[in-house]
């Protein structure tokens, strides 16, 4: 095989003609893969290996524990409230930010991202300071027999806080890249605002929404630090799945802890698959828009 044809195919595949010698390429690839295997693949495999160490029977028995089932229910409930709230916010905020220009836009985007830079422990603490017994609203809540901290509402609030930016930060750049020509055309042709949104904007951003929702959901179901602060760890009452994992682990009940953890690891794998598909679709859409 002559080198010219080799170069030609290389260019065709988008591989550069200037590059490292093959041995360097293999070496670098091997080191990178070894690093990823050590830090990512091995821990992931360990979750399932530990979970099934004592066989299927023990695995299923651990999942059927009433406390574990209660934790699963609470986690599903938390995500079912937190995700729609943040989805509505994400869509509304990205419409205001991406389709209009106004002063202070960058500041607003930074503020929306704020929960990402706050430690999860602080995210829980702030709600304790407001709704806790010694908090601002504590005496009032107690007088009316309402409980937020060490109860389900506190868990939901803390989860809403930590998952707050996920959907908005995905939709804002996507909607900005799409511009507003299509929407303006729809309005000029007589469509109402809502019609324009549902018929024109929504189909354009649907993969972005899926991407944001799946990441938001993963964090909502998996949040540990913030929820740990506001939960009170009442078994079967205010324990989410990650907190249940912690309790079982601290009781040296490793097989059960990893069995429950394997549910969360499965959730993570599903999240990665859906995320990859959504990402691929968003990229394709952006490219076709650049061309069109």
């Amino acid at each position: 095989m002559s080198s010219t044809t080799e170069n030609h195919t290389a260019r065709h595949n988008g591989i550069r003609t200037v590059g490292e010698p093959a041995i360097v390429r293999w070496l670098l690839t091997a080191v990178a893969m070894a690093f990823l295997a050590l830090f990512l693949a091995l821990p992931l495999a360990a979750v399932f290996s530990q979970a099934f160490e004592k066989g299927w029977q023990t695995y299923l028995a651990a999942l059927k524990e009433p406390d574990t089932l209660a934790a699963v229910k609470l986690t599903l409930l938390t995500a079912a409230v937190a995700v729609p709230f943040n989805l509505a916010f994400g869509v509304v905020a990205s419409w205001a930010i991406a389709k209009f220009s106004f002063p202070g836009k960058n500041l607003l985007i930074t503020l929306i991202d704020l929960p990402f830079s706050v430690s999860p422990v602080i995210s829980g603490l702030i709600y304790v300071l407001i709704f806790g017994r010694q908090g601002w609203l504590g005496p009032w809540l107690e007088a009316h027999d309402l409980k937020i901290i060490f109860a389900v509402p506190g868990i939901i609030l803390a989860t809403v806080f930590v998952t707050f930016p996920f959907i908005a930060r995905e939709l804002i750049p996507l909607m900005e890249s799409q511009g507003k020509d299509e929407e303006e055309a729809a309005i000029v042709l007589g469509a109402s605002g809502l019609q324009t949104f549902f018929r024109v904007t929504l189909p354009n951003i649907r993969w972005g929404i899926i991407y944001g929702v799946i990441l938001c959901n993963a964090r909502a179901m998996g949040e540990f630090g913030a929820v740990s602060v506001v939960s009170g760890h009442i078994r079967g009452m205010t324990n989410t799945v990650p907190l249940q994992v912690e309790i079982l682990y601290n009781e040296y009940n490793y097989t059960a802890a990893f069995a429950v953890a394997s549910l969360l690891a499965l959730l993570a794998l599903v999240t990665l698959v859906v995320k990859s598909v959504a990402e691929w679709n968003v990229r394709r859409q952006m490219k076709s828009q650049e061309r069109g």
Partner: protein
Amino acid sequence: MGPMRVMKILKCTKSVLPGFGPTMGYTLLYLSLVVLIPLSALLLKAAGLSWGEFLGAVAAPRVLASYRVTFGAALAAAGINAVFGVLVAWVLVRYPFPGKRLVDALVDLPFALPTAVAGITLATVYSANGWVGRHLEPHGIKVAFTPLGIVVAMTFIGLPFVVRTVQPVIEELDAEIEEAAACLGASRWQTFRRVLFPLLAPSVLTGFALAFARGVGEYGSIIFIAGNMPMVSEITPLIIITKLEQYDYAGATAVATVMLVASFVMLLVINMLQKWSRRYAE
């Protein structure tokens, strides 16, 4: 606000598209209720403390030791990620190999895997009889239940930040630059060091800062592997939790305020870095 400014804002917002008022109103309301008011509750509570109370809480020897552990380990982990993250990003963009898309998706695992799960599995893998730990133990290297374990956990959670910040920049690199360097007689290593690395540097620094910031605030994945020995392997977020459990709300608030201010400073630095790398890209 002068009338010119008002005119300017009106002109800015004038658009055929409807709904700016209600959507902006809802955005600001929800943002205030969920994020801004609760966060200011922390700052207000801290402002209510006397200087003595505040300093007594944030400068106690055990708390000072926790800053050293937390920031030191986060720095080390971000450094490891800066090196290996760039390598992983480079390999993913430039070299073809089987299973590449799978590996690419796996890089985001630390984003998707709940921190408690990461914590217990890392603690198990690196403990004395774990898959990795049992090969390190004979050499006298203890990872689990030492500060080294904290570095491992922070490396795990920080990895995607560097890879995902650097990867798109490598994708956008213009082949002509490298070809030109090669034509002018530069070796491959010279090209990387003198030509490519300066182009990548802003994104590497941004990724480093993001990984560092994430490591400093991290709690779930660390407490299982850290051993949580006061003065040795106790991280600052755990100090806050401990104070809360002892109903020391003032102390928890004071330490949390220090951490919050630190994260705001890092956020500012990251924003500046991102602006810098964007200017570099253009």
